[in-house]
């Protein structure tokens, strides 16, 4: 079993719902994102083309962030999800440097409105979902939802309660989640049918996130 995701760039409307819903669900401090949307342009007027890439941790099969971790805080589960044990993380930031997709961040709490103290939302988040300052954080494919859903007999990618928040939030249904190793799963089928590709395969990390480019 290897959890993975397909992002259909053709369907993506750049609404940032994935980025916002993830930030909200995990009470992420200012400046920290597990999901991002980047936009670039190529060409010259009038032949300009816009390229949008929703980004998240790719949970690479050959993850450099796991190799470089000096404390074994970064590790890969059997189902392919790359996780961080925050009680072991020493905050050396080597994993942040090593990630070619730059999907890891070091936690530093700061006020959303400097000088005015933390607002109620931030205070609730720091209590309900605290982060250890100085440690690395990143997307974990909503593994709490995944694990709880599997215990209840739900199917991640099909049952919303067991599916990552960003997948549920997408209004254009641009994201599909499932088991890449199951040839009959929706995500595996779509990857084949739409000829989806990994982002920057020359990085040689074998990501678990695929993109439909055209």
């Amino acid at each position, binding site marked *: 079993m290897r959890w993975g995701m397909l992002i259909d760039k053709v369907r993506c409307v750049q609404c940032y719902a994935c980025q916002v819903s993830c930030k909200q669900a995990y009470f992420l401090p200012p400046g920290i994102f597990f999901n991002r949307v*980047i936009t670039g342009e190529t060409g010259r007027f009038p032949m300009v083309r816009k390229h949008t890439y929703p980004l998240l941790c790719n949970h690479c099969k050959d993850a450099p962030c796991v190799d*470089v971790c000096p*404390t074994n805080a970064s590790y890969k589960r059997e189902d392919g999800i790359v996780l961080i044990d925050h009680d*072991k*993380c020493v*905050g050396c930031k*080597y994993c942040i*440097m090593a*990630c070619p997709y730059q999907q890891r961040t070091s936690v530093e709490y700061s006020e959303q409105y400097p000088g005015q103290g933390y607002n109620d939302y931030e205070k609730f988040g720091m209590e309900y979902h605290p982060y250890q300052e100085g440690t690395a954080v990143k997307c974990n494919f909503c593994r709490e939802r995944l694990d709880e859903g599997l215990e209840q007999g739900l199917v991640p990618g099909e049952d919303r309660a067991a599916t990552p928040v960003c997948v549920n939030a997408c209004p254009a249904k641009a994201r599909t989640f499932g088991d890449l190793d199951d040839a009959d799963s929706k995500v595996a089928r779509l990857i084949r049918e739409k000829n989806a590709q990994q982002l920057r395969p020359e990085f*040689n990390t074998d990501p678990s996130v695929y993109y439909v480019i055209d």
Partner: protein
Amino acid sequence: MHVKPWEWMVKPTPQEEWIEGKGLLSWLSFFSVALGAGMYFVATLVNYPWAMVAGYIVCLVIGGGTKVIDLGQPKRAWRMLLNYDGEGGLLDAMLLLFKSPKRFFKMFLNSGWRTSWISRGMYFIGLFAIFGLVHIILAFVANPAATSGIAALTSVTGIFAIIMAIVSVLVTVYAGLLIGYVRAIPLWGSALMPVFFIVSGFVGGAALALAGRINNAVTSAVIVQWLQVLVLVYVGVVVVYLWNAWNQSGTSKYSVRQMMKAGGLLSIVFYVGVVILGILLPVSIVIVSMVSAAATAPLLAVAIAGVIIGDLSMRFLIMKCGVYTPLITTSPY
């Protein structure tokens, strides 16, 4: 060299964790560790105990200390050496030696050293600290007559000298391997990175060792010979490294261009720090010292200062100009 938020990973994006704000300590740490170990190595070869002490302090106190301070959770630094899965801290981990010796030794075997250069570096520095302390004590108390010639190699001091020479090389080179492993930054992911670190560590170390013996004709002559070779090798390595980066990929070429682009702070550091003070000045003095046998102490002092400033500047530029390849696949980089 900041990117605007909408340009993040759309254009070459500089790394900031190891050079901005508190990250400056990482730059100082990598420099000090290599410089200190290089100085220790040269001092060992010329049997100069006080320079060994200075190298030891620079490497461990300044180099090691700045790195520990830079960590997000410095109290957990011991975890880079031990893979402890239980609850509790270092004391509980150490008590396993008595409770479960097999599990205790497995903590070392299963630690991050298997794949992480930071963990390996911590082990090298640990060996440097332990063996270096013993070696320094022996170097001060040993009879000089007994530690010269072939007999020196078989004496206890001589054996520790050999061990420390090897460990010093490992400590000098590990940061280069650590940075060179980061393929995500094309400027860094080069086989020349460890070569640069080891050569620059020895050049800086030799320069500092010379600074202490500048008025000692015998020792300074030996160190000057070392410097003459090392400075020229260093210049060659820097030139080849930059040439390789220029031709390796669009992103690494962008990095080199940022160093050389006139008008910015980085170009001042490059042309004044690296080119003039770090290369032209020491090379000129080396040539003078080769042509005329007398290299006066003031000239040597200037060369030493130039080498140190040049090395510091080059490492600063490597950290500052390290950029990530944009993720937009149609990017020209």
